[in-house]
C-alpha cells in the first residue's frame, strides 16, 4: 500500500426528490484494498456505487480519485470525455445483472475484446489471444469464444462480465452484488474466482452486497449503511464479530439466524 488513498469520498449525498438515498457518506479506499459496503435492500448501496462511477450525478460532496493518467482528479466536476476515458481505461463496473454489463447479441470474444478495442487495441490477433486468455482465467471453455452469451448459464455470464471488466487491467473495480442472482452453489464458485483474481491482480475493489458472507470472504474492511448513512466502519472481522451499532448488530444476528 502507498501512503495516499486511491479514492476519497467526502460527505457525498445523492437525493431523489425528497429522498436522501445517499446522505453524507465519507470513506477512503486504499490501493490494493477490498472494501465491502453492506446494508439491507434500499439502504443506498447501489446509488453510492453508481454515483462514484458517474452513472449518476451526486447532489453534494466530493470524490477524489488518483488517476494514472491525469493525477488527482475531482470526479464530481470532471468533464464527461475525461470521465469516460477513465471508465474505459482505469475502471471496471460489475453489474448485478450480467445482462446490464454484456452485449448479449455479440460473441463472448467480442465482449471481452470490445474493452481492449475501446482502449485503442487494433491488432486482431492480439485481441483474440487476450480474449482466449481471459476466458480461461474465468473458467470458461475457450471453445465458446465465438458463442453468444445468451447461450451461457447465469454463472458463466457473470464470469464473462468479469473477464470483460478485468481484461484492461483496471485500477479500480466497482461490483454491485456480483453474486446476487445466482444459485448458492454457483455463488460459492464465483466468489472463489473473484477472490483469486483480486489477489492475483492486486485490484482495488468496492463490493456492494447485502450478503455478509460475501463481505467476510472478500473484504478487508466494511462500511455498514442504513438509510443512506454509514453507521459503522471498520475491519471486516471486527465489524462482523463485534458489531457496535445496533443496526450492525441486527444485520449480523439476522445472518446468524439464517
Amino acid at each position: 500500500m502507498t501512503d495516499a488513498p486511491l479514492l476519497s469520498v467526502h460527505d457525498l449525498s445523492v437525493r431523489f426528490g425528497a429522498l436522501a438515498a445517499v446522505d453524507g457518506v465519507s470513506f477512503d479506499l486504499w490501493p490494493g484494498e477490498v472494501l465491502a459496503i453492506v446494508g439491507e435492500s434500499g439502504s443506498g448501496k447501489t446509488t453510492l456505487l453508481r454515483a462514484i462511477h458517474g452513472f449518476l450525478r451526486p447532489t453534494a460532496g466530493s470524490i477524489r480519485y488518483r488517476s494514472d493518467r491525469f493525477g488527482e482528479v475531482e470526479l464530481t466536476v470532471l468533464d464527461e470525455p475525461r470521465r469516460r476515458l477513465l471508465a474505459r481505461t482505469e475502471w471496471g463496473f460489475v453489474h448485478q445483472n450480467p445482462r446490464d454489463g454484456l452485449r448479449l447479441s455479440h460473441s463472448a470474444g467480442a465482449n471481452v475484446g470490445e474493452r481492449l478495442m475501446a482502449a485503442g487495441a487494433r491488432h486482431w490477433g492480439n485481441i483474440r489471444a487476450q480474449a482466449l486468455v481471459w476466458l480461461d482465467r474465468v473458467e470458461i471453455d475457450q471453445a465458446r469464444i465465438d458463442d453468444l452469451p445468451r447461450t451461457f448459464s447465469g454463472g458463466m455470464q457473470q464470469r464473462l462480465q468479469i473477464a470483460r471488466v478485468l481484461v484492461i487491467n483496471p485500477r479500480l473495480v466497482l461490483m454491485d452484488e456480483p453474486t446476487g442472482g445466482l444459485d448458492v452453489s454457483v455463488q460459492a464458485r464465483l466468489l472463489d474466482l473473484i477472490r483469486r483474481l483480486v489477489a492475483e491482480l492486486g485490484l482495488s475493489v468496492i463490493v456492494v452486497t447485502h450478503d455478509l458472507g460475501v463481505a467476510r470472504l472478500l473484504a478487508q474492511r466494511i462500511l455498514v449503511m442504513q438509510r443512506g448513512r454509514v453507521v459503522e466502519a471498520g475491519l471486516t472481522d471486527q465489524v462482523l464479530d463485534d458489531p457496535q451499532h445496533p443496526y450492525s448488530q441486527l444485520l449480523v444476528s439476522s445472518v446468524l439466524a439464517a
Partner: protein
Amino acid sequence: MSATPYNFAYLDEQTKREIRRALLKALAIPGHQVPFASREMPLARGWGTGGMQVTAAVIGRDDVLKVIDQGADDTTNAVSIRQFFTRVAGVRTTTRTEEATIIQTRHRIPETPLRPGQIMVYQVPQPEPLWRLEPSRAETRRLHALAEYGIMHVKLYEDIARHGRITLAYDYPVLVHGRYVMAPSPIPAFDNPKLHRSPAIHLFGAGREKRLYAVPPHTDVVSLAFEDHPFRPWKADAACMLCGATDSYLDEILIDDRGTRRFICSDTDWCERRRAKGKAA
C-alpha cells in the same frame, strides 16, 4: 403567381436555403451528421428522398445532372429522377460522368475519376454507422461527440472471427478527417478508396432519418480495419464480358437459363465509353 406550378427545382427557396445551410455545416465538420427538416418529395417510391432534396437545394440553371442507380443511368428510378429535374428545373442531363456537374447516386461512385467542382449527391437509407451496435440515438450522438468508436471494431472483429477475413462488402464504415466515423451509404467497399482525398464534393442525404453529412474535397477518408487484417476492397476476380475491364466493379449476371454466369461493368457509362474507344473484349 408564376405560370409554373413549382418553384425552380421543386422546393421553395426558404426550404432550399435551410438545406444549404445544413450542408455548409456538414462540409465544415466532415463526416458529422447534421439534422435537417426533411420534406416530402414527389415520386421515387423506394428510392428515398434525402438525395433528391440535396440535389434540389444545390442545383442551378447551368448545372448538368447525371443520375445513377446501382451503376446504371437507365434504370426506371434513374430515368424518372432525371426527368423530374428536367421538368422542375429545366437543367441539362447527361449520362457521361465527365460532363456532369452534379451526380445523384445510389449504390455507386463512378469509375471515371471525379474532378474538382463536381458534386456527388448520395441517397442514404441509414446515416448512422453505429445503429446496429447501439440502438439508442442519444447514446450514438454521445459516442460520436466523444469519438468513442471501439464498438465499431466489434462488428469487424466478429466478421474476422467468423470468416477469417472482413467480409463486409457494402456501407463499409470509414473514418473521416481522422475524427468522425461515417457510413458511406450502400456503396461497395470497392468504392471507398475513391472518397479518400477526392477533389469532388460529396454530399449525403438521408430523408427518413432527417440527416445530412458531407465530405469536402481533399479530405482523408480511411476505411476501418485491423493492423493484421487491413482493408481490402473486394471485387469479383473476373473481366467485363462487354469491355474486358478487369479493374472496374462488376455485376454478376445470368446469361441463359442453364445458370451460366458472366460479369459486366456496373458503371454503364464507363463501360460504354471504353467500348466506344475500341476496348471491347
